[in-house]
Structures are given as structure tokens and as C-alpha cells.
């Protein structure tokens, strides 16, 4: 049996290894080593826990069985999941962390002796507060992630669900969570503990349903952050350094990602959280819709334009993920490169449904990461490029964000696609994008619209090159 002091040192070592795991992600070369550090850290934490308890009786076998079941399911999912489903997977994983935190909190509440927290009905006050916070945040993470998962999976409509009195209701529930926590800590009543869990689950659902599909990058990052804070809350209860360090890391990681995503849309965090974006503008726009001429072309025209270009910039968006066009796109680019045309990719921070979504899809299609650029790196290059190929992106290219202060997306950083000599825009129809506003780019003199499914169009262009 390991002494508590020695095991605390080992927990610290796992915490440090987790920091190194994140540090590795600063570049793709060091990232694989970082992931390996993370695995070692986890192995140490689990092994040390077994040695610390030193109970290798029949209960140990049951623990191993449950560990194995979970491990097999996890490994199976990890190998089977298509890369396009990564946002759903991450949302699903967040919900599991949340639920695990809730279960651990319940276990600790029912059997506090096992955790050295006092006895049932007489749990140490500090531990009870930490436990309640961990359980409540865990429950919110769980139910919120379930909704995010359903929306991303398309089981639930991606459009915002709003109703009258939504915000006052949410505020009321949030206040009651604080009140119930206070009462729970002063009375230690198990009933209040269950009520706390129930209303926390409820608020998780209610907080996410008004948020629309394209705001999912913020939601996923936010839930990522919550799962960290839940883990940290439980870490305080268990007095476990590895859990406290990890919770803090994950919590701040998610918060930073949410910030980056909000900044990519030029919207405040609260504006996103309050939801309903895009739902109202769409209806008002229908009335004053004027017919403006657009130029549309076919694969042949597009191939002709690109063949005569010397540099092409590809702008992928969520539509590319939906059409699963990344492989077809890379084949097209390969053909272009054979003709000595310089090709690079421009990624907007909020392209896709989660941070880094486009990068993963392009990596899957064997696009080298040094051809893929972020907005700030590449935005000045559009003026010198011959062709911009916009595939599945819309709002992130809309010049209105720079010119029209009335527009809902005014001030949002956009890719300067219109500065290219010519723009090829692959889209299924002229319908406005998520923000519900018309894209001025459609009507520009140098824009050629390619009305088709992204994958099919890309394949056709390749044939014509």
C-alpha cells in the first residue's frame, strides 16, 4: 500500500504530464509526443489510486471489468468514428465527463466515509460545498452536451428554439440553484441534493436549446470549459492534486477557445449564450429582397479559370464537411499543382462546427498542414491571388461585415475574398447563410457562382482540368 504522501507526489507528476500533453500541441511535430505524455500521466494516476487503496479483493475485479467495458467502447468509437463527425464526438465525450462527475459526487454524498469526508448527514461543510459545485456543473455539462450532440447530429433541429419568458425562467432556475445549494449545506438533506441535481440538469437543457447550429463552436468550447470546472470541483472534494490541476487546465482551455470563437464572430459571449441569433433577421429580409443579377457557370468554366491562374486560394467552410468534399477537393488541388499552380487554403476561425474543424478534415484528406493558413496569415494574399475557390463557406467571406454598420455581422473579421481577380463560389443555391443576410459577393462582377453539391462540382472540375 502506497503512503498518502508518496501518492500525492505521483498525482503531481500526472498533473505535470498533462500540462506537457497540452504544451505538445503548440506544433504538429511535438503533438504526438504530447499525447503520449498524457497517456502516461493517466496510467500513473490510475495505478497510484489502486495502490493507495490497496484493496485487491473481489471488488477490484469488478472495477477492472467496468474499466475494461468502458475502455473497449471508447477504443471502438475512436477507431470507427468518421472525421466529419468529430464535433458530435467531442460533444458526446463532454457529456460523459459531466455525468461521471455527477456520479462521483453522488457516490461521495452517499458514502462520505470512503472519501474521509465525514459521515452521512454530517459531511464536512467545505467538502459539501465543493461536492455540490462539482455535481451541479457536471449536471449542466451533461445535459447541455446532450443537446449540443443532438443538434450537431441533426436529430434535433439546428435552428434556435426560443419561447417567451425564456431568459427570466433561466435566471430563476440559476438563482434557485444557489438557494438550494445554500439550504443543502445548512441542512445536509439528501432530498435537497437530488433537487439540486434535477434543476442543474434542467438548466443545462434550457441554456443550450436557444443557441443555433453555427454558434456550436462557442457552445462546444464552453461545455469543454464546464467539464473542466466540474472536474476541479470534484478534485477539491477528493483533495486530489491531479484532478485539481487538470480541471484548471481544461477549464481555462475551454474558456480561451470560447473567447477565440466569439472574437472570430465579433460577438460577445453573452450575445451567443442568450441565443436566437439569425432567427429574427431572416424573416425581415424576405420582404425587401430585390432581384440582382448573378453570373453562374459550370465546371467547365471553373476549370478554365483555374487552369489559367497562377495562384489559387481555397476557402473551405461547413458545407465542405456536410458534402464530405475534402478528398475530392484535395484531388482537384493535386491536379492544379501538377499544372504548376500555387494553391493554399484559408481557414476562418469559426469555419465549421468546432474550433479547428476544417484543419482536421483537410489533414484527413492528406493536405499538408503547411499549406493551410489562418485568417491573419493569409488575408493579405487574396489581393495577389488569381482565383479564390469558396467551398461551403458563406458568411465568413461577406464583405458587408466591413462596409455596412447596419449588418448583424458588421465588424466580424472576414476573409478578403473579393480582392481576388476572380471568385468561384460553390453553393447549392442563393439562399442566405446562417446569419440570414445576403452575401454581396454573389453579385460582384468577378464572381462566378457554381450551383451544385460541393463534392460533385469539385469532381467535375477535376475532370475538366
Amino acid at each position, binding site marked *: 500500500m502506497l503512503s498518502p504522501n508518496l501518492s500525492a507526489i505521483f498525482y503531481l507528476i500526472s498533473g505535470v504530464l498533462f500540462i506537457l500533453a497540452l504544451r505538445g500541441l503548440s506544433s504538429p511535430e511535438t503533438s504526438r509526443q504530447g499525447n503520449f505524455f498524457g497517456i502516461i500521466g*493517466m496510467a500513473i494516476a490510475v495505478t497510484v489510486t489502486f495502490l493507495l487503496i490497496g484493496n485487491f479483493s473481489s471488488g477490484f475485479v469488478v472495477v477492472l471489468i*467496468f474499466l475494461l467495458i468502458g475502455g473497449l467502447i471508447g477504443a471502438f468509437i475512436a477507431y470507427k468514428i468518421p472525421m466529419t463527425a468529430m464535433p458530435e*464526438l467531442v460533444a458526446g465525450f463532454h457529456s460523459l465527463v459531466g455525468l461521471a462527475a455527477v456520479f462521483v459526487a453522488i*457516490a461521495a454524498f452517499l458514502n462520505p466515509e470512503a472519501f474521509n469526508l465525514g459521515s452521512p448527514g454530517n459531511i464536512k461543510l467545505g467538502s459539501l460545498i465543493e461536492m455540490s459545485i462539482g455535481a451541479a456543473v457536471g449536471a449542466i455539462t451533461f445535459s447541455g452536451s446532450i443537446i449540443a450532440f443532438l443538434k450537431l447530429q441533426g436529430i434535433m433541429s439546428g435552428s434556435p428554439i426560443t419561447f417567451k419568458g425564456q431568459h427570466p425562467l433561466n435566471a430563476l432556475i440559476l438563482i434557485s440553484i444557489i438557494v438550494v445549494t445554500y439550504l443543502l449545506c445548512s441542512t445536509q438533506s439528501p432530498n435537497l441534493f437530488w433537487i439540486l441535481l434535477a434543476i442543474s440538469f434542467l438548466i443545462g437543457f434550457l441554456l443550450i436549446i436557444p443557441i443555433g447550429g453555427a454558434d456550436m463552436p462557442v457552445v462546444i468550447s464552453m461545455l469543454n470549459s464546464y467539464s473542466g470546472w466540474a472536474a476541479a470541483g470534484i478534485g477539491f472534494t477528493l483533495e486530489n492534486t491531479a484532478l485539481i490541476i487538470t480541471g484548471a487546465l481544461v477549464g481555462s482551455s475551454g474558456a*480561451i477557445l470560447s473567447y*477565440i470563437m466569439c472574437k472570430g464572430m465579433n460577438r460577445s459571449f453573452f450575445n451567443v449564450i442568450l441565443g436566437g441569433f439569425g432567427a429574427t433577421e431572416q424573416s425581415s429580409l424576405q420582404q425587401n429582397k430585390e432581384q440582382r443579377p448573378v453570373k453562374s457557370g459550370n465546371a467547365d468554366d471553373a476549370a478554365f479559370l483555374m487552369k489559367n491562374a497562377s495562384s489559387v486560394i481555397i476557402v473551405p467552410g461547413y458545407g465542405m464537411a456536410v458534402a464530405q468534399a475534402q478528398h475530392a477537393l484535395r484531388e482537384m488541388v493535386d491536379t492544379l499543382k501538377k499544372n504548376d499552380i500555387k494553391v493554399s487554403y484559408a481557414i476562418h476561425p469559426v469555419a465549421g462546427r468546432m474550433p479547428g474543424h476544417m484543419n*482536421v478534415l483537410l489533414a484527413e484528406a492528406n493536405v499538408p*498542414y503547411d499549406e493551410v493558413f489562418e485568417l491573419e496569415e493569409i488575408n493579405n494574399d487574396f489581393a495577389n491571388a488569381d482565383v479564390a475557390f469558396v467551398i461551403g463557406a458563406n458568411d465568413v467571406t461577406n464583405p458587408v461585415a466591413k462596409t455596412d454598420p447596419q449588418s448583424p455581422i458588421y465588424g466580424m473579421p472576414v476573409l478578403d475574398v473579393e480582392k481576388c481577380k476572380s471568385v468561384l463560389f460553390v453553393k447549392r443555391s442563393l439562399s442566405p447563410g446562417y446569419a440570414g443576410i445576403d452575401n454581396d459577393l454573389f453579385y460582384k462582377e468577378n464572381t462566378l457562382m457554381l450551383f451544385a453539391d460541393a463534392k460533385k462540382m469539385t469532381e467535375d472540375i477535376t475532370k475538366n482540368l
Partner: protein
Amino acid sequence: MEIDPFIFRLSIFILSIFIGYYVVWSVTPSLHTPLMSVTNAISSVIIVGAIIAGLAGNSDTIFNTSSIFGFLAISLAAINIFGGFLVTQRMLSMYKKKKKDK
């Protein structure tokens, strides 16, 4: 008067938030998806608490309400640990540099 150990844990927590802040800002944006999946995996170190709960019973009462929640939490966290690390590894193995030959 002695300092409550809670204060030390709070110090670790606050300092870790700062470490997290600086470390995550240095993550390259192209790896933000792997960042999310790996943070998922490491936050499942909550399995430590689940194991304590699962092993709390004696040989007569392996299964009581508390330990059952512990066992379930072990499975949930294990899905995340294995799933999270493996899917991260799968993603990271796809990030390749441009080949030298042309």
C-alpha cells in the same frame, strides 16, 4: 495558527489556471480540435474518484448504491480516456508536412 490545507489546494488551482492560460494560447489553431479531444481525455482523470467509490465496499457488500455509482462512473470515464486519447492520436497522425519530392 495553522493554514488550512484547502488554501494550498486553492493555490495549486489558481496557479494551474494561469499555466493553462499560457499553454493553451500557444496551441496552434490548426490543432484546436485535437486540443478539445485531449482535454476530454485528461479531464477523465476523475476516474480516480470513481475508483475510490467503487472499492469502498468490503467483500460482503461490493455492490451498494454508492459503489454502483462508482462503477458506472468508472465505465463512463474509461470510455473518455480510451476514446479521447486514441482519437487524438488518430487525428494527430494525419497532420503531415509537405513532401519534399515534387
